[in-house]
């Protein structure tokens, strides 16, 4: 076949510009968080002379590798506030971005398998209600009614003892979310520059004034880091440290199946989380690999463990075939909460540490990080998530609600 027989390429959703000599702000990282940050910088703060630098292709890192789950049922006030704000933004974004990215509020269940799980879950439901987050406690029978394919029998190693349920939670098509943001960013004048790797920073004293890249040096007044698993590498280039450890996190999909799974089921204890994508694949996430890694792949026994848990909970999956598995690099913190705020370097800001749960936070990360970059001060929602909390001790321990053990 020659190219003559191919149809016209559809319209591109964004330009592919060369970098300019200077920008008012540069965002490093063209994933969901970088795109959302640029979008809100342009929309809410009128900063349109800005660029997103992406070392690979747009949204090809964790934005392409996550399991697309969106929920806000976190324990502490600070987390509930920022994740619930994110959820409220998810609810209006398809219209605002004029792009139906298949946001489906099919609910999320977090299963409890031990008495400890039950106590933690019931406590979290109570905390969620006080924070205006929709949450219910379900007994095993109610779990079965909502998700008939779940095995609630006592004959498994960790029987289902109940679940928390957030009806407004759900999934969205991750690639389309990125493209929706990218198209709007482009319309607002933001330069999205792909294949542009940051190799260093230009500083005047302790102030950042430029970004060195493989496509030349770009002058800028402000820099926002949105590089997830590579945040430590960039921070080191800029001359400061982050309390981040990068780990591989794996996921997999099955072949396409008829719709069998009506909601999203997560289990912290036996460690699997499952939904069924619109096309029909079963999408399953695993736990993090224990070792530090930048390889975008992990060890097979982690996948094996996750599949064992999935098949015990969902016996009908036993004959489903794995289509592919993959890994991303997640940036974990010691308290399982993100870092969004200022850095020891003047005019440089950091958004990282979202670890295993960055996708759901995308709109709120973008909104609050844009506010921080534009004004130099944190938004009230990200103020508790400052880097300084590791010195003051005001940690926000979300290991219980983060759902992926690390």
């Amino acid at each position, binding site marked *: 076949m020659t190219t003559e027989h191919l149809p016209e390429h559809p319209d591109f959703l964004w330009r592919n510009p060369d970098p300019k000599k200077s920008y008012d702000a540069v965002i490093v990282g063209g994933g969901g968080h970088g795109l959302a940050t640029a979008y809100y910088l342009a929309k809410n703060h009128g900063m349109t002379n800005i660029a997103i630098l992406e070392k690979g292709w747009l949204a090809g890192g964790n934005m392409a590798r996550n399991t697309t789950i969106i929920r806000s049922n976190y324990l502490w006030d600070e987390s509930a506030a920022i994740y619930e704000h994110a959820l409220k933004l998810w609810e209006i974004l398809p219209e605002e971005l004029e792009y139906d990215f298949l946001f489906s509020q099919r609910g999320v269940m977090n299963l409890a398998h031990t008495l400890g799980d039950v106590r933690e879950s019931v406590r979290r439901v109570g905390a969620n209600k006080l924070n205006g987050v929709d949450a219910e406690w379900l007994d095993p029978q109610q779990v079965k009614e909502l998700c008939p394919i779940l095995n609630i029998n006592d004959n498994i190693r960790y029987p289902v003892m109940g679940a928390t349920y957030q009806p407004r939670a759900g999934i969205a098509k991750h690639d389309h979310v990125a493209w929706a943001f990218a198209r709007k960013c482009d319309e607002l004048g933001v330069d999205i520059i792909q294949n542009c790797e940051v190799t260093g920073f230009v500083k005047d004293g302790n102030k950042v004034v430029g970004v060195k890249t493989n496509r030349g040096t770009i002058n800028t007044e402000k820099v926002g880091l949105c590089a997830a698993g*590579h945040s430590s590498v960039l921070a080191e280039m800029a001359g400061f*440290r*982050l309390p981040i450890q*990068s780990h591989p996190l794996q996921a997999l999909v099955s072949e396409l199946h008829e719709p069998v799974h009506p909601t999203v089921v997560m289990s912290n204890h036996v460690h699997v989380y499952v939904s069924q994508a619109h096309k029909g694949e079963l999408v399953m996430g695993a736990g993090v690999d*224990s070792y*530090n890694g930048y*390889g975008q792949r992990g060890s097979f*026994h982690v996948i094996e463990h996750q599949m064992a848990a999935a098949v015990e909970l969902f016996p009908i999956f036993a004959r489903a075939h794995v289509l592919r598995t993959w890994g991303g690099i997640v940036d974990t913190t010691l308290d399982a909460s993100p870092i969004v705020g200022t850095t020891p370097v003047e005019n440089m800001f950091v958004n990282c540490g979202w670890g295993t749960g960055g996708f759901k936070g995308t709109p709120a990360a973008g909104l609050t990080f844009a506010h921080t970059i534009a004004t130099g001060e944190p938004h009230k929602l990200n103020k508790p998530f400052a880097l300084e909390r590791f010195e003051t001790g005001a940690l926000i321990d979300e290991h219980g609600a983060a759902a992926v053990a690390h």
Partner: protein
Amino acid sequence: MLLIPCPNCGPRDETEFHYGGQAHVAYPENPAELTDREWAEYLFYRDNTKGAFAERWLHSTGCRQWFNMLRDTVTYDIQAVYPMGQPRPDKENTATGTTAPTVTTPVSPEGAIK
């Protein structure tokens, strides 16, 4: 899965081991004298190296001994294993600008599954 060359038991599957994070982090000599910043550094800040990384492993279902390992965090290649308390084997070379690491316990090419 990594195939880890335990210095006491030989090559074993990663599932027999427990990861211990960055090696060579000493407990502060006078913790009470540290500033909040220094204490935070000790508690929460660890290197997150992309490349050769010295880390601790415990052979928890084998000899139950801790040891140090030099592993590349991008390729996952295991470059050396060495006893706890011994200096990192590639450090002196870094100082002289040589890139090839000297290994105290050479690992055969099949030492790591990639």
